[in-house]
C-alpha cells in the first residue's frame, strides 16, 4: 500500500514548458496555474463548476481547472489562455474574432470562453447557432448577453 504523503510533486507541461511544483493534495489545478505558475489569465468565478472562467485545455480537452486537483494533473499537458496564440504579441483566430465582433466586455469570462470555443470548433467545425449556444453552455458571461460571442464564433465557422 502506498503511503499517504502530505505533499506531492507534480510535473506537467504548461503552454509547452515543463514545470513542476510541490503541492498539498487539496490544491486545485486552477490555483497551481495561477499561484505557482503565475498564469493569472485563468480565472476563478465560482465554486460549483458552473461558470467556466477557469477553463483550460488538459491533454487537448477543455476542462474546468477548479474541479481538478493539481495532483490529478500530474503528467498532463496544459494549455491556458496565455498559450493560445503562437505569437505572444498577436491574437489567434478565435481571439481576433472576439475582438472584431465585440464579444467581450469586462473580460473576466473571456479566457475561459475562448478555451471553450476552441473545443467547440474542434467538435463542431460546421457549428450552427444551436451548436454554438450549446457548446458554450459551460461558460457564464454576465456582460455580453452572448449575442456577440455567438456572432464571433459564427464568423469562424463561416471562414472554414
Amino acid at each position: 500500500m502506498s503511503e499517504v504523503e502530505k505533499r506531492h510533486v507534480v510535473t506537467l507541461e504548461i503552454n509547452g514548458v515543463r514545470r513542476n511544483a510541490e503541492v498539498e493534495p487539496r490544491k486545485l489545478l486552477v490555483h497551481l496555474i495561477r499561484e505557482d505558475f503565475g498564469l493569472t489569465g485563468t480565472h476563478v468565478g465560482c465554486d460549483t463548476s458552473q461558470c467556466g472562467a477557469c477553463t483550460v485545455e488538459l491533454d487537448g480537452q477543455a476542462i474546468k481547472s477548479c474541479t481538478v486537483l493539481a495532483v490529478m494533473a500530474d503528467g498532463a499537458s496544459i494549455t491556458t489562455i496565455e498559450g493560445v496564440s503562437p505569437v505572444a504579441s498577436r491574437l489567434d483566430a478565435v481571439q481576433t474574432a472576439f475582438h472584431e465582433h465585440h464579444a467581450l466586455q469586462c473580460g473576466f469570462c473571456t479566457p475561459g470562453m475562448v478555451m471553450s470555443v476552441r473545443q467547440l470548433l474542434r467538435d463542431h467545425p460546421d457549428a450552427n447557432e444551436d451548436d454554438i449556444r450549446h457548446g458554450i453552455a459551460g461558460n457564464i458571461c454576465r456582460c455580453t448577453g452572448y449575442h456577440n460571442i455567438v456572432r464571433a464564433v459564427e464568423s469562424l465557422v463561416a471562414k472554414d
Partner: protein
Amino acid sequence: MIPSAFGYVRASSLANAIDLLRQDPEGTRLVAGGHTLIPTLKLRLASPALLVDIRGIADMRGISIDDKAIRIGALTTHAELLASQQLNDVFPIFRQTATRIADPQVRNRGTIGGSIANADPAADWPAVVIALNAELEIVGPTGSRRVPAKDFFVDIFTTVLEPAEVLAAIHLRRPTLGARFIYRKIRHPASGYAVVGVAVGLRMEDGLVAEMSIGVTGAASHAFSGDAATRFLMAKPLSHESIEEAAKLVSEATECLSDRYASAEYRASLVRTETKRALLSLAA
C-alpha cells in the same frame, strides 16, 4: 473554495482501491472525474481523510463491444460515450443523453460510473441504464457481483453498494432488432441536472408492444423503473389512449420530490408529459 486537508493515493489496481476503502470506509472516498466530489469538498460539505484516485485502474476503463454484449468501464467519461461511434451505432441514446449532461468541460471529466454510483436523484445515466436493462458490475472484498440497474438505486445518494464495494462496469445486451431508445430531459436552469428525465425503450412486433422499458430520474429520491406502465402496455397496440394511461402509471409510480424550484405535482406532471412524448416519438 479550498477543501479541508486530505491525503491522496493513486490506486494501483481495483484490489488496491478496495483494500484502501476497507481500511477506513467512512474516511475514504474514491475520485475519478471528481465532478461531484470536488465541488462538495470545496464547499467543505465533506471532509474525507483520504482520496483514492482510481483513474489508473485499467479494468475500469474503455468500451468493449462484441456481437452479444457491451461493457462500459465505469471510468468512461460522458465525452467518450458521446464520441464513441461504435457504441452509438448500437445505442444512439448514449450520444443523446451525454449531450444533455452539464456542459462540454464537465463531460470531458465526469464519468458514467461516478454518475451512477453517486446516485444523485437528478443524474441522467441512472434513468438510461434502467431503460437499457443494464447490469452493474460491482467488485468488493469478497469478489464481484452483478446487479440489475433497476435494483441498484435505493434512496437519495444511496445504492446497494456496500462500504468497500466499487462499481466497476456497466453491462448491456445488444438490443433486439427494431428496439429503439430515447431520453427526454427537462434541465434545471442553474445546475443542468434533470428536473425530470425519462428514458424509454420500445420494440414493436406486429403492431403490438413486444419489449418496453422505462427509467425515470429527477422525479423521486432515486431513479426508478416504470414497471407498471411496461406491464400495462405489453402486447398492446400504441394508441393515444394507451400511451396516456401508461404515462399516467409512470407518474403515479412513486412519490415525487418537492423543492424550492419544482413541486411534486409539477414533477409528476413532467414525468407524465415526457413519458407520453417519448412514447409518441418512438411510436412515430
